């Protein structure tokens, strides 16, 4: 009975909609009201993306923030909603640089900054240099381009574990070449523990990251009109001048995004140090991602680990915002 009523009322409504229209057989179909079509439809189409974004990013983030305010240890893993609230205690522990936990976090923050600076800088430099070198058409360019992209295409775990083998002190390839063959060191060096570990980390990170820079810059180079180079060369500009005055300024928007993305990926990189060093990285290569992982999952202080994650998120947000502000100002200036 209810169903009949509903159907009737629907028919009635649809009739009313139709009667307001221009008539004819086509117009008998229920129409999407203009208000929805103009205002709501785009949102309706966005809904699946919004839901996925919620599931993948927003909800975990909200849960993470909630966790950071709780005293969340192994006693509450099974029922983490029951972990007692601890206010800002976890944050206080994380930022108290006079106590070992805060001090270690600050140390790992500095290590990460240094690592990111060199890893991003070198990856960018190699990427740009390789892309510019391969700009001219020559025999074998395609093969070289494909070879350059290999590190980007390899699964991270397999690639980094191979590096870990190569860095082994007694049986690794690196020491075999540096010490046994070239005689550059007095004795075989340690790369996976001690002072050199940061160099090992930077080398692997650059090797892994530069093909992405190469790919993006190569795409960017396609958009620079050839005529500019021709005109410059007629005016007598050499190759360096062309790179400085044409290539780099034209690549600026591409580079802005590239450097930002490389920075975010490198600062947060977890796979490289974890596969290279295991769950306890050497002090010199104690990146913040591993440090937070260790605080959360190895020593089971999930609350403190979450607080550290939130602090890291805030830092990256601020850096990104400042970076975008500066670069967009520069662009506005250039446009004017």
């Amino acid at each position, binding site marked *: 009975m209810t169903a009949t009523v509903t159907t009737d009322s629907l028919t009635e409504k649809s009739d009313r909609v139709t009667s307001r229209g221009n008539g004819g057989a086509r117009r008998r179909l229920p129409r999407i009201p203009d208000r929805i079509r103009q205002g709501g439809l785009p949102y309706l189409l966005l809904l699946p993306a919004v839901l996925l974004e919620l599931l993948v990013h*927003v909800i975990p983030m909200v849960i993470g923030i909630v966790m950071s305010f709780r005293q969340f240890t192994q006693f509450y893993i099974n029922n983490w909603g029951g972990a007692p609230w601890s206010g800002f205690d976890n944050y206080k522990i994380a930022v108290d640089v006079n106590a070992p936990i805060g001090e270690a976090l600050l140390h790992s923050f500095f290590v990460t900054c240094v690592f990111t600076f060199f890893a991003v800088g070198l990856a960018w430099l190699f990427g740009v240099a390789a892309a510019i070198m391969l700009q001219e058409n020559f025999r074998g360019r395609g093969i070289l381009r494909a070879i350059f992209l290999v590190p980007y295409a390899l699964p991270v775990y397999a690639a980094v574990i191979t590096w870990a083998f190569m860095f082994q002190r007694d049986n690794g390839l690196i020491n075999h070449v540096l010490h046994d063959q070239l005689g550059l060191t007095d004795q075989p060096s340690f790369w996976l523990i001690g002072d050199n570990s940061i160099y090992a980390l930077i080398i692997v990170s650059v090797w892994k990251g530069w093909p992405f820079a190469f790919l993006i810059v190569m795409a960017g180079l396609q958009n620079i009109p050839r005529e500019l180079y021709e005109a410059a060369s007629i005016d007598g500009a050499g190759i360096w001048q062309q790179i400085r005055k044409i290539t780099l300024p034209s690549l600026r928007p591409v580079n802005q995004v590239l450097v930002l993305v490389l920075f975010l990926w490198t600062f947060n990189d977890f796979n490289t140090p974890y596969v290279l060093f295991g769950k306890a990285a050497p002090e010199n290569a104690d990146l913040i991602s591993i440090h937070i992982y260790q605080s959360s999952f190895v020593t089971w202080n999930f609350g403190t680990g979450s607080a550290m994650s939130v602090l890291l998120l805030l830092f990256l947000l601020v850096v990104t915002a400042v970076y975008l502000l500066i670069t967009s100002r520069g662009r506005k200036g250039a446009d004017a």
Partner: protein
Amino acid sequence: MRTIRAAAAVTLAISIAAGVTGCGGGSSSGGGSNDSPKTLTYWASNQGPSIEADKKILAPELKKFEKQTGIKVKLEVVPWADLLNRILAATTSGQGPDVLNIGNTWSASLQATGALLPWTKENFDAIGGRDRFVESAVASAGAEGKDPSAVPLYSLAYALYYNKKSFAEAGIEKPPATWDELVADGKKLSKNGKWGLGAEGSNLSNNIHQTFVLGQQHGADFFDAEGKPTFTSDGAVAAVKQYIDFMAKDKIIAPGNAEYAQNQSLTDFAKGKTAMVLWQAAASTFASQGMKPEDWGAAPVPVASGTPGQGKNTNSMVAGINMAVFKNTKNIDGAKKFVKFMTSDAEQKLLNKTYGSIPPVKTAQADEAFSAPDLAVLRDTLAKSAAPLPQVPNESQFETAVGTAVKELWADAAAGRPVTTESVKARLEKAQQTMQQ
């Protein structure tokens, strides 16, 4: 504009709702159910030389169980390095296996999560009774005064494995019984690119096992009676320094061992590069690396007095693998049946023989197979001179904090930096301060 606001409101509402419901977290509590009585999922720890080897060893046994009960067991062999993380993830999400292996040193930590089925008298009775098991093995399956969080499956103890050929070449007639003898023998053996003793400097758990035992010999427990860390006690500092000094001062461990974490010290031993190694149930690994049983010998781990026993003469931790059941299993009866099957006399004899471990089940332990010289050493050690690691909820933190401190000290020793009582104490002090609870 109104639409945007509405969309924002909906988004916020959904995220808050999801956040709140998510906060419930974990699994349903309670004692499991029998909703899925025909299957079981089993996470076995990697015991043999490889994961493939373990699958081959366990598959026929699981078939046997299926034939007996009609319950199919889905097996996954988990490497040691991943096991604890996998268990934590399963505990948090409630999506874990029905039955799993845990390292017995994690018992109290995992017990504190409340995710594992407690082995009450009733549960023990369902698998033949608590009395079937050796008491020290059950004691290392959970905190004192609480129902154990798991049932012992394979018992292990440390022994001193030595390469007979290397010993003969160096003119050493018998394995060392005291640390002084070990150092003296080690010096004789450490020449021509070969080394006296092996270590796994970057393996945090191994660092803990070795320093805990040395700690016992120096009268240090690393925790006081209330469960508070005492990492900087004189005994603890002396124990850690003694261990690192084998490389730093005595020079009987190769500096390269500081970065070992994947059992490379066993490979070195099998290749004849090192003559001694302190390990638990290494037989199957040696065999997989081409060693014959007559190539190596096993002796009790040295103690200062030369005679292993209790207290300051402790020469091993009570090591072993336990079998636990996730509380939220959908096949509680099947899970208990499976634990009963795996701890039955027949399976205990077969599996422990294969893995070179000792059965924690008394009747199985009496089997002649465990009277072979090397296994007799392990069995005697377990019975007479092994102590369980501290059964405290933050044992996992202890392993990480002190294990990492020892790893850093190995790195110092390997790089030729001085390792002094002060530097050891400073590292341990830092480790202690990171213990939050």
